[in-house]
């Protein structure tokens, strides 16, 4: 409910995906609070919004549509941080549909005008699963204090190509966006909540914006 939201409130959008509690615990380990919610007014009134996600883009977008969250999320003006699939949902579209129809394109939130495509792993094993280093890091406040060469935990088979929206990149067979940003939206392809102290620094930077 909107009247339960105090100043400097953080919300984690309940996308119906499974890693909500790990994201909440990560925020709490840093001494912040966060509310898991799918209430439109609570999300609109929050100071910071985290959009988590694991699993499949088609199922996750279907959940967001069913919960009537699309317009609310698109119109947010406060800082919004996406994790993994949450980042991919910020893109224009994703080609991760389902095993039965692999040519279908999923329309996403389109708050960062880039596409999500199959990761071009050049023969390397997929999913890209484990700790990998950032190859480039640009000047973004959420990445303050993060250097190329630092390890983060990745689990994915789709990715945003490197573009003008890339704020950090990683390499696995080819270069791809480890993080993308546009206006008040930023998303990380890796899991900051499972990336040790470097991941915690990203979450802390965001919550302190």
């Amino acid at each position, binding site marked *: 409910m909107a009247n339960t939201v105090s100043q400097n409130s953080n919300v984690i959008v309940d996308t119906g995906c499974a890693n909500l*509690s790990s994201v909440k615990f990560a925020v709490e380990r840093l001494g912040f609070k966060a509310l898991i919610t799918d209430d439109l007014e609570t999300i609109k009134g929050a100071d910071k919004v985290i959009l988590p996600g694991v699993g*499949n883009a088609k199922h996750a977008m279907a959940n967001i549509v069913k919960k009537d969250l699309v317009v609310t999320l698109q119109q947010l003006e406060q800082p919004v941080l996406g994790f993994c699939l949450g980042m991919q949902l910020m893109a224009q579209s994703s080609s991760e549909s389902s095993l039965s129809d692999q040519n279908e394109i999923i329309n996403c939130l389109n708050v960062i005008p880039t596409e999500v495509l199959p990761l071009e792993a050049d023969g390397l*094993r*997929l999913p*890209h*699963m*484990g*700790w*990998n280093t950032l190859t480039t890091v640009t000047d973004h406040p959420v990445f303050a204090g993060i250097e190329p060469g630092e390890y983060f935990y*990745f689990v994915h088979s789709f990715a945003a190509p490197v573009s003008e929206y890339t704020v950090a990149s990683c390499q696995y067979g080819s270069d791809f966006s480890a993080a993308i940003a546009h206006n008040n939206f930023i998303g990380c392809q890796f899991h900051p909540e499972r990336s040790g102290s470097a991941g915690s620094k990203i979450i802390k930077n965001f919550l302190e914006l």
Partner: protein
Amino acid sequence: MLAKRIIPCLDVRDGKVVKGVKFRNHEIIGDIVPLAEKYAQAGADELVFYDITASSDGRVVDKSWVSRIAEVIDIPFCVAGGIKTEADARQILMMGADKISINSPALQDPELIARLADHFGQQCVVVGIDSYFNSEANGGAGEYQVYQFTGDETRTQKTTWTTFDWIEKVQSLGAGEIVLNCMNQDGVRQGYDLAQLSQARAVCQVPLIASGGAGVIEHFTEVFKQADVDGALAASVFHKGVIAMDQLKQSLRDQNIEIRPC
């Protein structure tokens, strides 16, 4: 570059971490949460928790500890033991586990792998395989065979699957990672089964984790260099302090193996 993973495995029974030799004679090592926290801080890349009695007893893992672990650690972890349905998996993932690992239930109902991958994504579906080299099988030539219910000596039984056929089958169903536990080596610290893991690697296109046999640092070096596994799982060498995480990781880095520093 993608790093090779060092994965301490904590066998859990009745809320305590235990360790047996060749799956038998379990002794209590300690409480789960402080041990999990200790390994995460020491530089482990991932943790696996196996409720070793769950499948055999026909009950699901006691789940309260899953969220207690998720609260304290900031590295990924996987929970195994008695996950038989999508509902079981959902509950454990909702409590904060990053992956679920299935073993005996997948042998009884292989389609479970496909259902879990469809619901939760391939990336969080790990299939554990207990493989035993039976030297008398295959007309005396020997054969790697898949076993089930290995958590309970009285129920442990051979399946009709050979290990490499089962590896191919679980991948075709949507397994996102395979942990190959070489039972002949388990707990005896004589080294990973490099021959078996190399053969498994040849048919495994998803991440492959070696399990069973680590005794000294060189065993890790060998398994990464010779069998090209994505991760190496070990228990007793870490629980008993035989190998320190920082020394292990530094040695592997000195051998030019891609490893995340502690």
